[in-house]
């Protein structure tokens, strides 16, 4: 009997070239009294390296809206984006994209399904049923449950799990599809500090064995510094790119690194950028 290694649990993504481009994105919402308000103003971003990309900005700055555009989940009743284009591998993206899977802050786990069935849910849909044979997806679900540490909870329902365990289910459901693009919308925002730390470490581990392109929205400066290969700082009302830099420190990043002078300087720089771009508006968080 062989014991599957976590590394072997999920195979590395095929080395296909990947390109995600946001081109001159503008988003406007109609105001109740007439006219409209611009929440995103000419944002252009390009992602072509697998890695963890942090979209950092104050709450309500429009970063989730940007992420949803990448996932193809568009708000109802509003043209989105109002201007500009989203291109995945050079093709304009107009609906949910097969290669991009989202993880929401409010884990959309189904209360009526067990952990196993929640993770296997995509394979009940025709799209994935036709692509992945049953024997294979069952194995994939087993493997990913092991990788997120929920093998022994497979028969429980979400109400019987903690917040962190629920978010593990959501993460597993996304990764079981082996997406090239993983979109995370403040996934750990509702968790307590200790659980958030655990989840960040889990994400780092999972990303090591499945190095896809992650776009991760957060309003937590510390989270951005702990996780990001690249940090994109967004100002608010309307959202513009205020800063965009790489962090080369390998993960996991030690508490010593987090307290190092360079890191604190970086943090200072981000906070400055945010204050310049959005004086007195919105909320950001620093959890060191």
């Amino acid at each position, binding site marked *: 009997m062989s014991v599957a290694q976590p590394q072997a649990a999920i195979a590395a993504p095929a080395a296909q070239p990947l390109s995600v481009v946001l081109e001159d994105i503008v988003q406007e919402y109609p105001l109740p009294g007439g006219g409209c308000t611009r929440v995103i103003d000419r944002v252009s971003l390009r992602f072509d390296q697998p890695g963890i990309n942090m979209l950092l900005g104050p709450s309500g700055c429009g970063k989730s809206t940007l992420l949803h555009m990448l*996932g*193809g*989940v568009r708000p109802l009743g509003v043209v989105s984006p109002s201007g500009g284009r989203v291109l995945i591998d050079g093709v304009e993206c107009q609906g*949910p994209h*097969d290669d991009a*899977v*989202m993880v*929401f802050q*409010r884990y*959309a786990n*189904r*209360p*009526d399904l067990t952990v196993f069935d929640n993770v296997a*849910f*995509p394979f*009940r*849909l*025709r*799209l*994935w049923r036709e692509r992945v044979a049953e024997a294979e997806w069952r194995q994939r679900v087993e493997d990913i449950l092991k990788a997120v540490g929920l093998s022994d909870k497979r028969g429980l*329902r979400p*109400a*019987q799990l903690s917040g962190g365990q629920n978010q593990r289910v959501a993460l597993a*459901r996304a990764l079981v*599809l082996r997406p090239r693009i993983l979109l995370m919308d403040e996934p750990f925002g509702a968790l307590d500090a200790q659980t958030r730390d655990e989840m960040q470490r889990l994400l780092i581990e999972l990303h090591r064995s499945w190095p896809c392109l992650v776009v991760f929205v957060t309003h937590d400066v510390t989270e951005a510094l702990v996780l990001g290969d690249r940090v994109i700082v967004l100002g608010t009302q309307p959202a513009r790119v205020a800063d965009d830099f790489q962090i080369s420190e390998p993960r996991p990043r030690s508490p010593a690194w987090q307290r190092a002078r360079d890191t604190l300087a970086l943090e200072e720089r981000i906070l400055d950028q945010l204050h310049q771009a959005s004086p007195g508006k919105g909320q950001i968080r620093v959890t060191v």
Partner: protein
Amino acid sequence: MSEFWNPYAALAGRQRRLLGVAAVAALLLLWSLLAASGLVSATKLPAPWDVLAALAYLSWHEGQSMLLTATLWSVGRLLVAGALVIAIGIPVGIAMGAAPRVNAVLSPLVDPFRSAPVVALLPILVMWLGIGETMKIVFLFIGAVVYLIPMVRDAIQAVPQSYWIGARDLGATPWECVQRAVIPMAMPRIADAVIVGFSVMWTYITVAEYVNARQGLGQLIQNARRFSAWDQVFAGIMVIIALALATYQFMVWLKRRLYPWETEQ
């Protein structure tokens, strides 16, 4: 001892049952006293023991049970009408809840009937369908389905949009979202609608069986009334109440078995 005014304090099961039994016993006692005192004539209010005797008589007399026959007929009609309510009402309600255009077309046709006097439709149904079984079944069906359809629609619309978005993001087609995410999440409330539907049908069963009834509990009551056998009328009403309660309890139990996750939330 918990506070008297406190909507969130759950009573211990024993205390709750004790209070309930005491209330029923008090009513029976009051009824017995009234009947025994002679203040109210027996032709207007039969004594509890007379009703009990009538119940025994109806249950078994000269080798046959009128009550059982009548009950089987009534339950049979209810089940046929109930099956139709479920088979037609639930899909219509789901379509209305999940497709705004269907709702826009059907809601002006369905919603007004919720407050319409369904009993007043009976003569019209008799005119159209005659006085046979079809009329009775259709009457029960209409009576229940006008409640069920809007409830099913509301159950569908009460499902948080996040489940729809989540499924959509995973590559579900819009219909798959409805089928795989929205309907399963709405099932407990749809079950509630079915339970209400059956309760409504029990209240209408006597009306349905008043017209040209040869069999059924409604007929039994109607027949007893004609001969001023008020003890039998009371007995018949009590049997209907008991059956309606049993149906309700059974369906609530079934719902908890089928959707245990609902109460875990």
